[in-house]
């Protein structure tokens, strides 16, 4: 199992995920640096992501959309803030109105910190997502697009385990 630790901080509205990958740091970095690889991991099942513009450079803007099973498109962007290849980068992740990728002012941005460090087994990755407040978090979850079928599957697991 690649996920080794999950920390929820209710006070700080922070989710910290730690994962260990059996691949060198440079290889993990490549997945995030290459749009074609990134879109294979970013969207949840049933909501494949398509990255339109993507370059991991400070100040650059990544644009992408996720397509629902019904063909509806959810537009989003990253504002890349800092980059230190191949050990990590930080960005804000936000929702956009349409294919012009104009930020949707009604929707919250989240702050994301990705770090990759070499280990004996390969790479330890830490992903820290911070939401401004409870309302932001709830809005992101209400979008539905982001968790989609993963959630549904987890609910079934919970039901079977109870």
């Amino acid at each position, binding site marked *: 199992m*690649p*996920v080794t630790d*999950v920390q*929820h901080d*209710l*006070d700080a*509205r922070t*989710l910290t*995920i730690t*994962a260990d*990958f*059996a*691949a060198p740091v440079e*290889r*993990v970095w490549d*997945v995030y640096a290459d749009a*074609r*690889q990134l*879109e*294979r*991991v*970013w969207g*949840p*099942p049933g909501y*494949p992501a*398509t990255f339109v513009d993507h370059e991991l450079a400070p100040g650059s803007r990544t644009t992408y959309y996720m*397509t629902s099973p019904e063909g509806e498109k959810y537009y989003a962007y990253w504002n890349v803030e800092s980059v230190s290849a191949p050990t990590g980068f930080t960005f804000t992740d936000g929702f956009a109105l349409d294919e012009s990728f104009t930020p949707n002012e009604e929707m919250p941005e989240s702050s994301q910190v990705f770090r990759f460090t070499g280990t004996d087994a390969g790479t330890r*990755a830490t*992903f820290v*997502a911070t939401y401004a*407040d*409870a*309302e932001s*978090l*709830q*809005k*992101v*979850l*209400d979008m539905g697009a*982001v*968790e989609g079928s*993963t*959630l549904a599957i*987890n609910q079934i697991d919970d039901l079977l385990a109870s």
Partner: protein
Amino acid sequence: MTERERDEQEDRADAWFHALADRTRRDILRRVLAGEHSVSALAQGYDMSFAAVQKHVAVLERAGLLTKRRQGREALASGDLEAVRSVGALLTELESLWRGRISRMDELLAGALQPDNQSDNQPDPHNQPTHPTHRTD
């Protein structure tokens, strides 16, 4: 979900996080989740006035994280485990998204990720054969 229900849900989430953003209130909540306590018994554990502890208990009560009942002259407080679980559920939903991403990442790194339906609509130039695979003669 109607607009009104959505608003109510968000108001509730705000109240939860506000109530939990204070160290004394988290401590009170931990104690009343473990068992029913009178407000005066709770107040003895803190270096603050009875009135201040009463106010913290009231914030937790308004957020629905704690319920109170009267017994004689005492107010007895107990924690609402269901409500506490709901707060955690907000972040657990996000966790499921991340777990999905990371397991697909693991598959990609292992080279085991199969092309999915997306490649039908969005041909990946790296995966396309450069020559037709069938002969026409």
